């Protein structure tokens, strides 16, 4: 019943044409090579992978901004490339880049953004004030965006993604640059959204974040998902349940439980140091 799955990515392939003269493989870059996954209602699905693994390309295809080379993306059963307006009405996006509209003050830009979802100004204002309160930005409502710290801008951008009460939430590295306390506030908010039935797709480089928040995680490298499962299942399958020993400095051995980072490093093959089961 695809109509009931908030987000379905089926056999997504995305090949970029490169025009520059220095391409080696015929002017094409296969950024995503056949990726499939579902994100269910009330589920947080994590995409982990090194830079260049194809995570952001996948996100850009899901928003309907980049057309897929092949494959299909359904948001609440609607093909986002055939009916972008309908599909994106239930989609909230927080891009990796800062994309706040610096021509508007903090509150005004949430209200303006809400109008893009057919939300009347009064209703948008009510929602915006509630979001600013929840994100600890109430006293910044009248500020220029430029006057905010990096962490505050990040929070504002996540808040903006929530203004339309989306059923599907795409978050590309939402907590980068946040201090531990603010990060926890954001985690709480995301878990509230999940509790209310939102389907969340989270791209992150923070393994602890993925382990805490994500019901399932897909580990991506070179345009493919190498394995998908709950974080503990992945750890058990690829590392084992015991402790691992790691030489963190010459002569200093740490023994600790295996974690998602060990899985990530093992699967994506970027490990430079030896990791031995203890």
């Amino acid at each position, binding site marked *: 019943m695809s109509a009931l799955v908030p987000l379905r990515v089926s056999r997504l392939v995305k090949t970029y044409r490169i025009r520059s003269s220095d391409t080696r493989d015929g002017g094409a870059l296969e950024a995503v090579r056949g990726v499939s996954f579902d994100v269910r209602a009330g589920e947080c699905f994590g995409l982990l992978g090194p830079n260049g693994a194809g995570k952001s390309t996948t996100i850009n295809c899901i928003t309907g901004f980049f057309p897929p080379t092949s494959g299909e993306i359904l948001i609440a059963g609607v093909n986002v490339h055939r009916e972008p307006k*309908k599909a994106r009405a239930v989609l909230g996006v927080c891009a990796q880049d800062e994309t706040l509209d610096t021509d508007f003050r903090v509150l005004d830009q949430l209200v*303006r953004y809400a109008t*893009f979802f057919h939300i009347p100004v009064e209703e948008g204002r009510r929602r915006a004030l509630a979001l600013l309160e929840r994100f600890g930005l109430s006293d910044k409502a009248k500020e220029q965006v430029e006057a905010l710290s990096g962490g505050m801008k990040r929070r504002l951008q996540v808040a903006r993604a929530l203004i339309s009460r989306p059923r599907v939430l795409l978050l590309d590295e939402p907590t980068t640059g946040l201090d531990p306390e603010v990060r926890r506030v954001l985690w709480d908010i995301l878990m509230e959204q999940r509790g209310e039935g939102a389907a969340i797709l989270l791209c992150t480089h923070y393994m602890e974040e993925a382990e805490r928040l994500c019901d399932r995680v897909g580990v991506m490298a070179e345009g493919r998902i190498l394995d998908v499962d709950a974080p503990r299942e992945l750890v058990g399958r690829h590392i084992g349940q015991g402790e691992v020993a790691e030489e963190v400095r010459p002569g200093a051995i740490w023994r600790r439980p295996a974690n998602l980072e060990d899985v990530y490093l093992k699967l994506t093959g970027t490990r430079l140091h030896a990791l031995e089961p203890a």
Partner: protein
Amino acid sequence: MSVVDSLWGVRCVWLRYFDVFRKSLRYYLVTTFSEPVLYLLSFGLGVGALVGTVRVHGMETSYRAFVFAGIVGQTVLFQSFYEAAYGAFVRMYYQKIFGSMAVTPITLSEVLWGELLWDATKATTAAEVVTLIGVLLGDFTPGAVLTVLPVAFFSSLLFAGLGLAVAARAKSIDEIGYPQYLVVFPMFLFCGVFYPIETLPAPLQWVAWALPLTSVNSLVRTLTLGFPFQPGAVLVIAAWLLLLVAYSRRAMFARLVK
């Protein structure tokens, strides 16, 4: 996707620009209107006192009236080009708002139409203010305020297309300087803003007629001063309008959508 939905999207984008304009009204009034008004004063009154009258197409007119009409065309060119070239580059490259608007129920196509229409709206408004000054001073026929409107709008859309195409192709904001100094300034100086192009050597006249601003000035002078109508001007403007608007949208899609 229905036409009504698309128009709604374009309207949303246009209203976003209008809201920014409204919120910084004083800044925009000073920066949008000071330039044409300064040109009017400097050339209309200063050079106008020196030159007295000019004779074009067998018609005698005061230099002040002649140059006022040219400033209408110059206003259309500068206001729409700068807003679309520098303004759109900042919005697209630094603010990244094209990308953030085009993942909502608004599409990139609608964002670009909204951008072009806003740039044209702003330039048309400025051109109308100059026209109104010309009418109030008795240099233009009173009806010019209305008749100039469609010419100013479509010409503004044309130069907004030029600006957006430049924004789409510029690798950095500094690169916008190339077309600004190699295309826009030459048009400003050689397309009949300050003197009739008939005074130029013949080959330069042909170049001037190929560039769109000469046709804009010709039409504006027909409507404000009663100069003879030159039908070719409509064709030149229509051709550049279609070409530049289509190319600017294509170039922006090519840049943003991979």
